[in-house]
């Protein structure tokens, strides 16, 4: 019986059926649900690690111990884990190990559009790329076999449209993996120069063996077409767009293994068709390989390397008709994401804006403090960059001290903010770091983290105490504020900016969307008292709008946080 599964859920099912015993990941859209779904199987130990590097190293440790292991991350997470990645390629594994990386072409929820296929080439590791949920399940099983046969981790590359699309899968029972007891083997597992020099040729020989496998594996397949004037080479979601448009018109070489690529198979395919067209999202990985191997083809000159593809884009470039459509001749206001009504970050951002401080920002829901009307954030780069960026900003120009802060969420701080804070303490910049502690990993959909007191399985566990942690790394001034209390935030911010040593302000209030959070209930505006001054509009709460010159609060959205009430000069709100 077929059932619908999200690509990520099917991937997790594949891990389960293949006997995976250990999962360690850091959440990141669009990869998060692989780990969340894997955690639902009691046979799999699953955890959230503080970051992707820790996750990957833990997964390697589990592999050495003899358990089939997994770690999953989004594309930018693989940058964090790149250090172990390149050397695990040398050590290889004991039990099978899979690394999932999920790209986000179109940047639905990401800060860049990098193409993770480069990592497979650079680290000399095999990479598989499923094109729907059924393949995600099947490829996970094949990946473990390849990993154990060729003694290396296997990268599975997902993308938003595969990870977050449901399609039919057929499930089967779990098969326990064979026991693989750990055996001490210094030449294999200790990568110091003497041993690593011996290993590099092994890695190159493995790539040659995997390239031979790529020539015959059913992971790559040719689908015959009626018209051989064009042949299409494609993979992943691009394959789906090609088939949607062309059906069986042109022959298609569908690649499920993206590294190494099969040179002979591609040459043979090219020889059997007229013109070769490569359809791939983002960079020209397949196209470049074709050209290096003397196969003339068209790719990026048609499709470019920016954003997602779609069936209409493929249709247009291949000369097919697209459906007629009617566009409304009307300016439709954009609807960008916003901080939720009751979001604890809002009050703090308002105070930062009011005090005209430079805000070095970070990755999470609170990045949304950058948009109108708060416009409170100055820069956002990557996980942890707020804390270390602020240090450089203040060191390079001490005039910035007392007028600048870093803002970073609790989960992001645990991920990679701590090392930046150590730098502030050690190299003594007079910096003020604000930890926006909403007691959850928010943007990716409420994952636990080391500061929440619960683990991935939902069980109580050690809760890292942020105050003690900051003090332990050498920050003497650590303050805690309630971001719903604007006066308190204002006073403490001014005091800490005025201080002549590093400080941390913990702005603590759980995410308003957490189920256990009790709200006061909506408050309303006394229309007789409201003078329409729009003071309450300055915080950008989606529940507040102006109608006929007076503020009104949408009772279906309002949580009663009371931040707007503190801005009203006429006591017209909630009175």
């Amino acid at each position, binding site marked *: 019986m*077929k*059932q*619908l599964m*999200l690509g990520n859920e099917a991937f997790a099912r594949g891990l389960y059926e293949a006997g995976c015993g250990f999962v360690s990941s850091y959440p990141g*859209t*669009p990869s*998060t*649900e692989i780990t969340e779904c894997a955690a639902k199987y009691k046979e799999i130990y699953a955890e959230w690690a503080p970051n992707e590097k820790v996750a990957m190293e833990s997964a390697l440790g589990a592999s050495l111990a003899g358990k089939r292991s997994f770690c999953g991350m989004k594309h930018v997470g693989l940058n964090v884990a790149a250090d172990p990645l390149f050397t695990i390629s040398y050590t290889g594994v004991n039990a099978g190990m899979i690394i999932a990386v999920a790209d986000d072409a179109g940047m*639905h*929820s990401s800060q860049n559009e990098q193409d993770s296929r480069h990592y497979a080439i650079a680290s000399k590791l095999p990479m598989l790329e499923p094109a*729907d949920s059924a393949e995600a399940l099947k490829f996970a099983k094949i990946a473990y076999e390849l990993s154990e046969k060729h003694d290396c981790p296997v990268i599975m590359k997902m993308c*938003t*449209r*595969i990870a*977050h*699309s*449901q*399609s*039919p899968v057929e499930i089967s029972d779990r098969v326990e993996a064979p026991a693989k007891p750990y055996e001490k083997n210094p030449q294999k597992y200790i990568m110091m120069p003497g041993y690593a020099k011996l290993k590099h040729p092994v890695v190159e020989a493995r790539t040659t063996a995997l390239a031979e496998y790529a020539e015959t594996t059913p992971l790559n397949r040719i689908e015959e077409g009626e018209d051989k004037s064009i042949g299409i080479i494609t993979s992943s*979601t691009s394959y*789906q*767009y090609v*088939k*949607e448009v062309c059906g069986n018109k042109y022959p298609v070489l569908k690649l499920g293994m993206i590294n190494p690529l099969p040179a002979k198979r591609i040459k043979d395919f090219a020889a059997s068709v007229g013109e070769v067209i490569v359809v791939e999202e983002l960079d020209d990985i397949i196209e470049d390989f074709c050209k290096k191997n003397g196969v003339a083809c068209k790719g990026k000159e048609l499709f470019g390397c920016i954003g997602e593809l*779609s*069936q*209409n884009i493929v249709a247009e470039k291949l000369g097919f008709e*697209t*459906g*007629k*459509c*009617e*566009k*409304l*001749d*009307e*300016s*439709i*206001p*954009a*609807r*960008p*994401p*916003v*901080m*939720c009504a009751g979001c604890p970050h809002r009050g703090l951002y308002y105070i930062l804006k009011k005090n005209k401080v430079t805000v070095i920002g970070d990755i999470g829901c609170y990045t*949304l403090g950058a*948009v*109108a*009307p708060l416009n409170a954030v100055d820069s956002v780069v990557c996980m942890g960059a707020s804390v270390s960026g602020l240090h450089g900003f203040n060191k390079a120009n001490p005039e910035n001290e007392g007028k600048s802060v870093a803002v970073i969420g609790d989960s992001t701080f645990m991920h990679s903010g701590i090392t930046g804070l150590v730098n502030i303490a050690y190299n003594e910049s007079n910096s003020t770091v604000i930890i926006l502690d909403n007691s959850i990993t928010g*943007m*990716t*959909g409420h994952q636990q983290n080391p500061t929440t007191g619960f683990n991935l399985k939902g069980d109580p566990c050690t809760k890292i105490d942020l105050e003690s942690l900051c003090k332990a790394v050498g920050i003497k001034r650590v303050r805690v504020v309630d971001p719903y209390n604007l006066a308190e935030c204002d006073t403490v911010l001014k005091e800490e900016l005025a201080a002549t040593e590093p400080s941390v302000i913990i702005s603590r209030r759980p995410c308003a969307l957490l189920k256990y959070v009790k709200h006061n209930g909506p408050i309303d505006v006394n229309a007789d008292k409201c003078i329409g001054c729009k003071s309450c*509009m300055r915080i*950008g709460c*989606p529940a*507040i*709008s*102006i109608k006929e010159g007076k503020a009104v609060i949408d009772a*279906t959205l309002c949580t009663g946080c009371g931040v707007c009430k503190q801005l009203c000069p006429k006591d017209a709100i909630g009175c």
Partner: protein
Amino acid sequence: MKTKNIMIVGVGGQGTLLASKLLGRILITKGFDVKVSEVHGMSQRGGSVVTYVRWGDKVYSPIIDKGEADIILSFEMLEAARWTEYLAEGGTIIANTQQTNPMPVITGAAEYPEKLDEKIRALGINLDCFDALALANEAGSSKAVNLVLLGRLSKYFDFTEEDWMNAIEASVPPKFLEINKKAFELGKSF
């Protein structure tokens, strides 16, 4: 059979994901090939969200492109207007007349367009719009808008009452089941 396409559009947090999950559940039990595509992450924070539901003998692309949707089910009027060009010729928009102001409207940088229903109909589009929020409140919760809209959508399918009820029971937590069933019936019979 030709692949059928439904887009479910709305504002992040309105429950569009449950609606598509429920629809997918029915379609797979009917033996169709099905793809349901969602976007998670940042847009779910009050942004414009879209879910694609496609079914037929063989479905390839997980997304719906411009000019392809047979039905657009919209949880909000401005979102209905935003996605009109995705509708296929002769397609239908089912919309909740609820108006949720986006931030550019709240801050005064833009205006919420007036008479969107008339403007959509002027394009020759079949527009089936009604106050789903009022019916959800009548059922017992403003959060049941998604089931009201699914009730309305059910009139465009020839699935049985039992098909829908089974899918609702499988998709909704037991303590909200009665409210959701009532919301479905209100949307269907309105």
